[in-house]
């Protein structure tokens, strides 16, 4: 066998004009995997930041002050599972891709998972703190109809007029303190804001998404006692709206 295989291989290499891959191709292949890992990590960071944004902007005080359902039920129903699912997907993807790189197998599983976990959480919270999550959330709700529907479903606690909760969008102005309001199920209500307590950062104008606490007075009339913004802790920008409370 000695030399025979070698000679045959060299003959084949010569006959088929085979050459080692170019350095550019090797570099491109390595870069592809690291780029993919980076993209997945950014996805995971954004998922953490959006998850944090949605959790922080859940109406925990309202849940606590009502006795319609146990608090644990509200916690379970308020968790943004969508972003939790994407977080798991991105982290798993990044982990697999990093393991696939040249020396990826040399990192200890615990250390790799720990470093990834800490980096993703810290950067996710930083992204949330500097407002990237809010901008993304607003953009997604504006441009991705499916996402808007999902968010509304998550807020189903507020689609309960019999118990005094209503969520939706202001669609028109009817008269002094009376607005037209379309709820999540697309039913139109006349809402009366006279004597309503307006929470900080609430802006009332057609197109504004709000959550209302109050009392159903007829099939399509609702007297508002408290008005909450859709995102309680968002930073609203100053804009000339008919009614505002920016205490």
């Amino acid at each position, binding site marked *: 066998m*000695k030399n025979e295989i070698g000679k045959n291989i060299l003959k084949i290499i010569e006959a088929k004009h085979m050459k*080692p891959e170019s350095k550019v191709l090797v570099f491109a292949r390595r870069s592809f995997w690291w780029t993919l890992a980076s993209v997945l990590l950014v996805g995971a960071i954004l998922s953490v930041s959006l998850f944090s944004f949605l959790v922080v902007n859940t109406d925990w005080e309202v849940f606590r002050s009502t006795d319609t359902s146990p608090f644990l039920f509200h916690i379970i129903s308020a968790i943004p599972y969508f972003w939790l699912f994407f977080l798991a997907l991105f982290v798993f993807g990044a982990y697999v891709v990093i393991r696939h790189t040249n020396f990826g*197998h040399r990192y*200890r*599983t615990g250390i790799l998972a720990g470093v990834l976990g800490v980096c993703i959480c810290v950067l996710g919270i930083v992204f949330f703190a500097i407002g990237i999550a809010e901008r993304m959330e607003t953009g997604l709700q504006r441009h991705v109809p499916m996402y808007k529907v999902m968010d509304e479903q998550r807020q189903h606690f507020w689609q309960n007029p019999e118990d005094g909760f209503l969520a939706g969008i202001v669609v028109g102005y009817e008269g002094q303190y009376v607005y037209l309001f379309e709820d999540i199920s697309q039913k139109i209500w006349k809402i009366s804001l006279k004597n309503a307590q307006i929470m900080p950062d609430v802006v009332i104008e057609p197109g504004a998404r709000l959550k209302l606490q109050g009392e159903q007075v007829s099939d399509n009339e609702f007297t508002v006692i408290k008005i909450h913004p859709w995102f309680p802790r968002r930073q609203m920008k100053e804009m000339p709206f008919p009614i505002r409370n920016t205490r």
Partner: protein
Amino acid sequence: MMKQPLGCFSIERNKSNCAYISYMSQDCHKKNDAELVLFSLQKKEYFLCIIEKYQNPLFRYIRRISGGSREDIEDLLQEIFIKVYIHLTSYDPKQSFSSWVYRIARNETISTFRKKKIRPQSLYLEPDEMEQIAGTFDFIKLQERKEFGKEIQNILAKLDQKYREVLVLKYLEEKEYQEIADILHKPIGTIGTLVNRAKKQFQKIYSEKQI
């Protein structure tokens, strides 16, 4: 290093193959793997040095993990070395060249034998290899080690592939844990676990046969 004259490779192509190869062989031994890779990238004839160095170890390794026939393994070796040549540029000197070549050989062997849907019934081991592997298991008594040789081949063939390959790499190829980790592309901790589980599975099959 690359500016060194290529020495024996300046020999004319029309000289006889034997003279060419034997002259080159003397030159091969003076160079380490990393140098051979660099020279092979410059001049493909140097690749013969790599083939000469690795064809026998790889032949034995493939035979140990696949149980294939000599002809099958020789065909496979040819494909493996061609693949090694084409991918030479991707070799990173931070890793041992031997581990890198073994990894390519291992992947090619598994994929070839999987395509052919062949699972080894028995692996071919030399008598000293059988004793060598029997010697690593405390539960095989000293006097049984020689007699048990043939059984060892059958037991190895019956092991799950992941266990068979770590035992072969650890006790027959005598690779370090880090090298095995590089060949199998698994974390070093996983290799330790696999070796322990492989020994347990080996012992279980051995005990069943004893009964």
